[in-house]
Every structure is written in C-alpha cells, then in structure tokens.
C-alpha cells in the first residue's frame, strides 16, 4: 500500500490579521435568491447605506439570480458565492403547473440551507466583517439562533413577512407544522435577543396579517410590532418619473393612444406556463369586450414562446428589456402573486389581475393582505378562473379608477437608517 505523503517544501500558509483601528468598515450582504425582488431592494438599501457610511465596503454572498443583478452593477461578490447551493433551482423543482407549496419547499430545502450556512460561516470566519445583513437569509438567521456562539458580527435581519401559515390543502398536519416552526422561531428570538441586532419588517404594521402564529401562540402582528422596526415598503426604484411621463413612455414603447395594452408576465421562473396559456386563451373573448385590446405575453427565459400556441392578436415575447417601463405604461397587467411585481404595479398605479400560486402561503395570505391594504389589484383564484372569467375581469378592471394608497418611496433610506448605527 502506498502512503500518502505531505510535501515538506510547500510554501508556508499565510494569515493576515488587521489591527482594529486599521480596518475599513465591512459588511457581508445576503439577499434571498427566491423570487426576483430582493436583489432590487437590497442594492437600493446598500446604496443608501453607503451614503450614510461612505467608507463602507460591501461584499455580497450571492447566487443566481441575485448575482446577475449585482454583477451588472459591478458590486463585489464574495468568491465563496460560487460554493453556494442553488435555492432558486430547488424552488423551481418544487413547483409544478400553477402550484408551489412554499412552506414545504422551504422545509425541503433544509439540506441546502445547512450547506449554505457552512459557506456563510467560512466567509465570516475569515472576513473581518463588522456587519452581516440578511434579507430573508433563512439559513443565517436560523442557524445563528441554533449556534449562537458562531455570531461574529452585528446582524441585521430583514423580511417582508412574518409567520409560516398553513394552506387548507395541507390539513391538520400542515397547521401543526407551521405552528411548530413559528414556535421554534419565537423561542429562538426570545431566548437570544442578541442574535438580531436589528430586525426590519419591510412594510408597515398594517401589512402584517391578522393571524396568530398558531394555537396558543401570540398574534403575529402584536409580536412583530414588539420585535421589529418598520422600514415601509422598499420598491428599489422611484416610479414617480415613469408615472409622470406615462404618455411619452407609451409613445417610446410603441403603444398607440387608441390601443388598450395588457401585459401578461410570470417573472423569470419556469413556473407560469399554465397561467400564460390560460390568459392567452382568454384573449379572443377579452378582445370582443374591450376595443383596441392588444395583449403582450412575456414568456421569460425559461418558457419557450413556441409552445404557448398564442391565438392571432397576441404577441409573445421571450424577453422584454426594462419590463417595469412596460408595466408602468400598460393599461392592465396580469401577473402571479409575488410581492415585488404586484407592488411595482401598485406603486405605478396600474390596474392588474394577480393569480397567487396554489398552496403558496406567502402569495395567498401575506401578499394578498398587503395588496388589499393598498387597495391594489384584483385577486384571482386560478382554479376558479377559466378563460372567460379572465376575459370578464380584464374588461372590468381595465377602466377601473385607481385609488390605491400611495406606496412609500423612502423605504430604502429608512431601512439603511435603521442598519447604519450597527457600523
């Protein structure tokens, strides 16, 4: 048997330790890759943080699709990011048709969360960071509470919803499990208040659902108000200029004055083909009801436009650059129930229909509650919406007068102001 040998002539391993007052201020920022919205709000918050603390150096521990946004902006991506396991691929694998049980998908991501926490731990062990910001970085928050001695920096935690909620299809078992997860979270936070130096709810107290965490557990709103600060919603961009020059925008985008433009979009994930097909199928009926109706369906990078069988009159596009401009200029949008896109439409003051994914507790309960507060959009039940129902809803909503509550435009600055004292 051959022995494994160790080279005696290898270069010495080197280590550097920086004296405390020689250190720059450094933050490690984690932005959830589930959904497309966190990256946008997090770079806005990072910009505001740098205004408040100009010598702040931010590294991002990030994966696709967040890393794409960051690379485009020239942000510093931590090299260990390459070792992260993909959370967005897991969510795509968990989804089918118009269905995604988000709570079970998070539970079934436990192996990935442990693996990614270990990557995070390696990064902070070596990185001389002053601050970690985790925007729905579930792994970091959970495992720091499980291993409190591993906390090495200040920690700012952010989320836009609090509380796992059961969906009816999950029955008694899911109700028990969500309550158990909530109970563990509550015990963690109450036992170790030192882990989250700052907990920020991205929204206002009125955005919190009126539910309890579970049988015998506190009211989510009352508990969250005690344990969180509130930044208001963070859009990540200011829609005002777009809204003010909407007529110019329409001209630039080629939308004529006598056209009624409906944009159908399902975001960048592969989930959404079923919804796209069904909305497209509603077009002939909707076009009979609405004069000058023009429907543009955005397939996104994961859905082949050719498989959608669009009827005459529907334009299917694989990709639309600066989609938010089209959403601000359109007459009506049809979307899934994700928070980012629906709130962009609320901020832009556009009418829209939204279809939460079946069994997705965040879209069906948290997001829906928030949109109702703003008076924005029309909730649609996918299972109860054959094409003729969608056509009817398009006709009813496209001329609806917009009386939404205004969406906050200072959320990023408020979030940054809450975090800045930690560095």
């Amino acid at each position, binding site marked *: 048997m051959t*022995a494994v040998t160790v080279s005696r002539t290898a270069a010495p391993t080197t280590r550097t330790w920086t004296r405390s007052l020689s250190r720059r201020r450094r933050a490690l920022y984690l932005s959830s890759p589930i959904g497309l919205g966190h990256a946008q709000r997090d770079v806005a918050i990072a910009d505001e943080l740098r205004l408040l603390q100009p010598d702040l150096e931010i590294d991002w521990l990030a994966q696709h699709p967040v890393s794409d946004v960051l690379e485009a902006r020239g942000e510093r991506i931590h090299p260990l990011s390459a070792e992260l396991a993909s959370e967005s691929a897991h969510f795509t694998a968990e989804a089918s048709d118009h269905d995604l049980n988000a709570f079970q998908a998070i539970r079934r991501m436990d192996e990935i969360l442990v693996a*990614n926490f270990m990557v995070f731990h390696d990064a902070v062990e070596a990185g001389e960071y002053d601050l970690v910001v985790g925007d729905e970085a579930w792994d970091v928050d959970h495992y720091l509470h499980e291993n409190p001695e*591993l906390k090495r920096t200040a920690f700012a935690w952010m989320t836009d919803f609090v509380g796992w909620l059961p969906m009816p299809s999950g029955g008694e078992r899911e109700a028990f499990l969500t309550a158990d997860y909530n109970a563990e979270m509550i015990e963690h936070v109450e036992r170790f208040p030192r882990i989250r130096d700052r907990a920020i709810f991205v929204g206002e107290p009125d955005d919190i659902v009126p539910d309890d965490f579970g049988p015998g557990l506190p009211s989510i709103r009352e508990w969250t108000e005690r344990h969180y600060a509130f930044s208001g919603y963070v859009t990540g961009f200011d829609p005002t200029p777009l809204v003010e020059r909407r007529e110019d925008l329409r001209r630039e985008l080629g939308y004529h004055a006598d056209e009624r433009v409906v944009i159908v979009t399902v975001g960048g994930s592969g989930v959404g083909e079923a919804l796209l097909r069904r909305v497209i199928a509603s077009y002939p009926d909707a076009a009979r009801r609405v004069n000058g109706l023009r429907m543009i369906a955005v397939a996104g990078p994961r859905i082949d436009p050719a498989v959608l069988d669009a009827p005459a009159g529907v334009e299917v596009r694989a990709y639309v650059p600066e989609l938010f401009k089209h959403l601000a200029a359109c007459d009506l949008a049809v979307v899934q129930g994700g928070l980012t896109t629906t709130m962009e439409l609320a901020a832009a003051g556009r009418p829209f229909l939204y279809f939460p994914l079946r069994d997705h507790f965040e879209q069906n309960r948290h997001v829906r509650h928030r949109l109702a507060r703003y008076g924005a959009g029309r909730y649609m039940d996918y299972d109860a919406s054959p094409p003729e129902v969608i056509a009817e809803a398009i006709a009813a909503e496209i001329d609806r007068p917009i009386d939404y509550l205004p969406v906050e435009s200072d959320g990023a600055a408020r979030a940054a102001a809450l975090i800045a004292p930690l560095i």
Partner: protein
Amino acid sequence: MVRAPDRVRAGRGSRIDPTPREQSRARYPDRTGFAERDGIQTFYEVYGQGEPAILLAPTWSIVHSRIWKSQIPYFARRHKVVAFDARGNGRSDRPPLVEAYAERELAADLLAVMDATDTERAVLVSLSLGAQRALIAAAEHPTRIAGLVFIGPAVPLGSGVPGRDAPFDEPLDTDDGWAKYNRHFWRRDYEGFLEFFFAQAFTEPHSTKQIEDAVDWGLDGDPETLILTEGARGLDADATVRLCAGIRCPTLVIQGDADAVTGPGRGFALAEAIPNARLATIRGGGHIPNARDPVRINLLIRDFVRTIGTLPP
C-alpha cells in the same frame, strides 16, 4: 415561554405529498458505483476531492446514506467524501440471510468500498450501530483508517436505555413504547415502528423534519430485511473492549446526553475504552445530532480532522 403544540402523528396516508420524491440535494455525487463481495452489491457515492478522505460509514440498515445529507456537501468542498448504503437498504442488495448482516460482513463491505473508490486511507465517521463495523475496520486495518469519529455509538459497553428490554421475537400483548421494537409489530405496522423509533432518536424539540426524513428513508427499506439485521451477529462486550484497546488512531466520540435510543452511557464508555479518545458531549442532544445539530457536528468533525496528519502511523 411559548409551548409548542403537541406532536400530531403524521400517520399513514396523511402525508402532504402522497408520492414523496427525493428533495433537491445541495450537492450531487461526482461518481457512483457498486462494490461487490460474494455476489452482493453495495452502492456508493463519491464526492469532491482532498486529503484526508472522509468515509461516512453506514449505520443500521434502518436508513441509508442520506442520513449524512448535512455532512456531505460541507466536507466535499475540501475533502474526498465517500458514503454508501449498507446492505439491506437504499440501492444496495438485500440478501435474504441473517448471516449476511453480521458486523464482520459490514466491516468487509466498508473495506471493499474503500478499495472500489481508490480510497487508501480515510477518516471514518460512524453513527450509532455503524460504530461496530468501524471498530472492526480500524482495529484490523489500522493503516487504512486515519481517524475515527463515533456519533451516538451503539456498542455493548456502559449502560443502555432503561425499559428497552421487551423481547424481540415473542408476540407481545402491548404495543406501548419500546414494545414496538418487536418483529411482530414491525410486520404489522412498520411505519408506526419507524415513527416511534425516530421520535426517540430525535428527542430535541422541533425535530419534525428530521423525523419525517428518517421515516421516509426507513420506508425505503423493509421490515423483513430489518428483522434479519436484528438477528445478525454484532459485537459482544469482550470483543468490543479488545478492539477498542487496539485502536491507535486519533478518535473523537460525539455523544448526546439526552440520547434516548442507546443512552449516553455507551458513548461515554466507548470514549474511555479507546486510548486517548476525545469526548464531545452534546448537552440536550439526542441520538442523531449530525442531522439535528448539523452545524455544530460539522465543525466538531472539521476541527478533529484538522488535527490529523495524512501520514500513516
């Protein structure tokens, strides 16, 4: 203090996903294959590269190698990691003979997997019953094993769990508690046994996911095979003490002090029986801390591996 609601038994047919498929892994193997001995095939997976190699030994065939899912992705970033399914579960064969499940056979499989994966030498990490095959391999093939980590070792040393004394082979007039550890009950309600057993294995609060995982892996096996493993020859106390005294490699024992399957006394006794062994006690920890407290266990193993050279003794 918030009290968690009482555990609701998942029960047969109440699963949320009626046809559970394997959830996404954080990392997939670079290579898989079978090691064959006496016509029996043992399925293995190889991940990553780097010395020393880490061999994740199989535990009792009640589960397969997914029990190491929280260790594999972490260690594979720095090390060659080998995991395999013990005969009797997962993708390995299930020979229908009780003799096939003797600890010596499993130790021989372990060496066969090392050969098949070109693993000259490895740190051997074992869980529960895996301790017995690990002891045999390390004592009899010292040049192949660079270090030993035992987690909740099931060895016939020290004292076990009180009340685990119901006869296995006789029909009982009760199914309460450890009376479920009985061949007739296994045949009657295997899933019920698995749910009981893994509720004992994970005594820590909020362990629903770990219990569900383990029950699902248990359902990848079958009661008849598990009955064979129960009748197979394991180590007795004398043999265990002899093997322990012969261990010369660095050794770490990780033992939960709330282990309700083997009891903490067995791990503590093993740490005393092996010369210069280190003991890490997980206060409040149950029988499978690598699944329930994976971050701490990963760091304990990492720190242990860092102290080991890659040169043979």
